[in-house]
């Protein structure tokens, strides 16, 4: 009897699987239409499309982080198509008034109060920031994330970073309180208000404790940890404030005046905070560098003055702030996405960043974030046209607006400069009900290539290769239908980052999602395996660390696959190398009988590839060199 019941269960599970598969096949994939077009709307049951990746887990937001009366948030009617791309003038007609003012509905307000935001990683933990606090998940098994802690501490955006037992968090809103209270601050000037960067002790992950709270004039919209390679006793934080400047009555020396009116204005700078690791409670602002200064005139408002770039071009915001800064201490550079400009900074002295170059772009509305490639020779800047709350990926929206601009970092006689190469925008048109624009992403550590996974709010996530900065190519994607078929609900991915073998996405409204890459014509299993070998103890995406790959067969074979793709390697060499690597991997130790033979074979092959490299050019030459190095190092391991 029991056995029968179980079999029935099994059968129903099987049937369920088949039914699900059947349903999946109904997702439109007709002709050349992108699978992402026409997905069914829904909060928890939206249609989904995935290409070359697997969606392995989805976890709704925990209690305390959504409005219990409206878990999917509150929608608003879609904006009209007129004036949508910001170039046509629409008549100034308001939507029809609803019949009579309804009673005051407190929960209808602050629809964004529980928004999930940025991610940080430490050990087996993913920390998901939220406008309302943060949540920590155990992802020892990435397909079974488990909530470890929910921490309420409102103030937005809740951008998070981690260093050892310290968790850093950005607070910008006027509702933020020193004591993490949810009641806001009712008086215009109050010692209870907190806007700036909080530091928590997370040594007890289930019960974080606030250690310090560094008040800043504009609050902190985002922040970036900066390691000083010459000073292990401190860590630095670059705080980027974008909000209104508070009054000097609340925080001394704050001034929201224009640069001409007040040379000490709190606008036109970032906050550099020094955190003594032995005493983080003593963290303090040590500099407010004028990184937008025109060095010739000394004008601190020296960069983009706001406005468009001529007929038919985008209107770019004035540069009086950075939205986000990505640092790469090992190459001594930072890329600042600073409102109307992308800037390159020398950060070898983290306290005193020095601007090396600045660019504008006629398609960019608001320079939002930046990502270097692993060599520090390329930068992807994103444009958050529409601020993230609006649909900017519709078929009527220009493909060069609201996407990425990819730059090469070029050495010239005047030092390092940024040189524009191309645009990239997630290619599938989205609906009027989906807020969509370029957002946060990270590198995927595939050796020999520059690959990024990027969030596009309700445009889903897109994985693309920018090894050739002039020709970015999409490799994989995931997308859901809108939260609602009629109204626009704020949702989609804020950040999608690769960490230790999986891709984690923080969904504004729906929670957390986890993905795995699948091999395809664009990415081989060896390339994925090589990426999987990179294991970090900690990851803050805005502080890039140099990735170095171990001398493993998967790494060598990843290069081989890339060279085969460009037909730059002889098939018999590939066969010989595969055989030698297999034999090397089969050895138990360098003392094995065959070790010396295998070692010699590998060394010989390495020598051949070095020669091939000398005769090749561009990326092929670099890959051949890396291949030779990997093989040599693999052979050396056999000596151990």
């Amino acid at each position, binding site marked *: 009897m029991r056995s029968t019941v179980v079999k029935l269960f099994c059968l129903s599970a099987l049937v369920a*699987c088949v039914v699900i598969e059947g349903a999946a096949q109904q997702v439109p994939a007709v002709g050349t239409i992108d699978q992402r077009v026409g997905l069914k709307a*829904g909060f928890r049951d*939206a249609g989904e499309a995935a290409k070359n990746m697997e969606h392995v887990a989805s976890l709704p937001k925990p209690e305390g982080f959504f*409005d219990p009366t409206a878990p999917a948030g509150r929608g608003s009617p879609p904006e009209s198509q007129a004036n949508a791309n*910001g170039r046509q003038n629409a008549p100034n007609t308001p939507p029809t008034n609803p019949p009579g003012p309804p009673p005051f509905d407190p929960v209808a307000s602050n629809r964004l109060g529980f928004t999930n935001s940025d991610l940080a990683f430490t050990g087996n933990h993913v920390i998901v920031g939220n406008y309302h606090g943060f949540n920590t998940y155990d992802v020892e098994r990435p397909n079974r994330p488990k909530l470890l802690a929910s921490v309420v501490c409102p103030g937005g955006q809740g951008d998070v970073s981690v260093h050892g037992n310290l968790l850093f968090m950005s607070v910008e809103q006027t509702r933020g309180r020193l004591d993490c209270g949810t009641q806001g601050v009712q008086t215009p000037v109050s010692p209870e208000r907190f806007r700036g960067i909080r530091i928590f002790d997370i040594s007890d992950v289930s019960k974080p404790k*606030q250690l310090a709270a560094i008040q800043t004039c504009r609050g902190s919209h985002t922040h970036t940890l900066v390691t000083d390679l010459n000073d292990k006793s401190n860590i630095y934080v670059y705080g980027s404030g974008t*909000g209104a400047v508070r009054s000097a009555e609340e925080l001394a020396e704050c001034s929201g005046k224009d640069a001409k009116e007040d040379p000490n204005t709190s*606008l036109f700078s970032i906050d550099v905070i020094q955190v003594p690791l032995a005493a983080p409670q003593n963290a303090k602002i040590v500099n407010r560098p004028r990184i937008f200064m025109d060095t010739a005139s000394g004008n601190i408002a020296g960069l983009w003055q706001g406005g468009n770039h001529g007929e038919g071009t985008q209107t770019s915001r004035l540069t009086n702030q950075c939205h986000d800064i990505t640092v790469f201490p090992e190459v001594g550079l930072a890329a600042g996405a600073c409102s109307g400009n992308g800037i390159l900074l020398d950060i070898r002295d983290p306290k005193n960043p020095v601007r090396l170059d600045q660019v504008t772009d006629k398609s960019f509305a608001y320079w939002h974030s930046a990502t270097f490639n692993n060599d520090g020779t390329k930068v992807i800047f994103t444009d958050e046209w529409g601020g993230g709350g609006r649909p900017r990926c519709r078929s009527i929206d220009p493909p060069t607006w609201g996407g990425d601009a990819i730059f090469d970092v070029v050495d010239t006689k005047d030092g390092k400069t940024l040189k524009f190469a191309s645009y990239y925008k997630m290619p599938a048109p989205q609906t009027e009900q989906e807020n969509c624009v370029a957002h946060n992403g990270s590198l995927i550590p595939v050796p020999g290539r520059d690959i990024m996974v990027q969030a596009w709010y309700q445009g889903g996530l897109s994985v693309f290769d920018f090894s050739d900065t002039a020709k970015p190519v999409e490799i994989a994607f995931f997308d859901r239908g809108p939260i609602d078929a009629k109204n626009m609900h704020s949702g989609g991915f804020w950040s999608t980052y690769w960490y230790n073998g999986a891709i984690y996405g923080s969904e504004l409204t729906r929670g957390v999602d986890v993905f795995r890459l699948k091999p395809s014509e664009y990415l081989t299993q060896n390339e994925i395996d090589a990426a999987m070998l990179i294991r970090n103890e900690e990851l803050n995406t805005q502080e890039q660390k140099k990735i170095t790959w171990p001398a493993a067969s998967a790494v060598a074979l990843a290069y081989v696959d890339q060279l085969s793709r460009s037909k730059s390697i002889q098939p018999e060499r590939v066969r010989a190398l595969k055989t030698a690597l297999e034999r090397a991997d089969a050895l138990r130790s360098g003392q094995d009988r065959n070790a010396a033979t295998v070692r010699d074979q590998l060394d010989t092959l390495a020598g051949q590839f070095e020669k091939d490299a000398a005769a090749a050019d561009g990326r092929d030459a670099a890959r051949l060199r890396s291949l030779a190095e990997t093989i040599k190092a693999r052979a050396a391991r056999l000596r151990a």
Partner: protein
Amino acid sequence: MRATCVSLWLTLKGQILRVFVIVLTAAAGTSCRSASPRGVEPHVPDQARDAPPPIVQPGAPGEPSKVIAVDKATDLSQVEYTGADIKFMQGMIGHHAQAVDMVALIPTHTNREDMRLLGKRIDLSQQDEIKMMQRWLEVRGQQIPTPGAHRMHGAVLMPGMLTPEEMEQLAAAKGSEFDRLFLEGMIKHHGGAIAMVSDLFNTPGAGQDVEIFAFASDVDADQRMEIDRMGAMLNAILKERQQ
């Protein structure tokens, strides 16, 4: 995907009952869905069985953290939009609408290309922000000012707005006299918007709504810079007139 389920089923057949039930629960709840999640509710993870961890609220720096209940954690009743927020948005719509009216005069009243460009820029940004404000009010079921309300006789003028007489004077002017009146008027007008933002943040309890906070911050920064730029244009025009 089908292969996964079949092999799972076959494997299960060989197991003892207890394992059956446990694995099957997981399979029905997880494996099938995670293998092909299209249109499927996300799986309910371990927490469905384990109680979720308590919600922790830290104290001020150096103070202990405490555990709080869900209803307390989600209570945003003290940081909802206030009457001042609503008035701010309603008032700013009329305020912006007047800027659009002023800008509409530019093509027929000026001879200067930089004035035309300025006009286009202001028109775009103000129209866009008007839409945003209308939506903010609509979503919250609040009264949306009608397009011409700011022109009505006896309409309350928000700070910096031109009086009907000043508007008439502007419409009657041409060439560089128009340019001067326009720039002086728009500088005053923008200054009014900055004052409105300042008043908002100086009103107890106001400006705590997430969207209001972001919008008011942007208005403040954008209009300050535009005032700066218009000041430079005005100086240039005055200089030319002297010559």
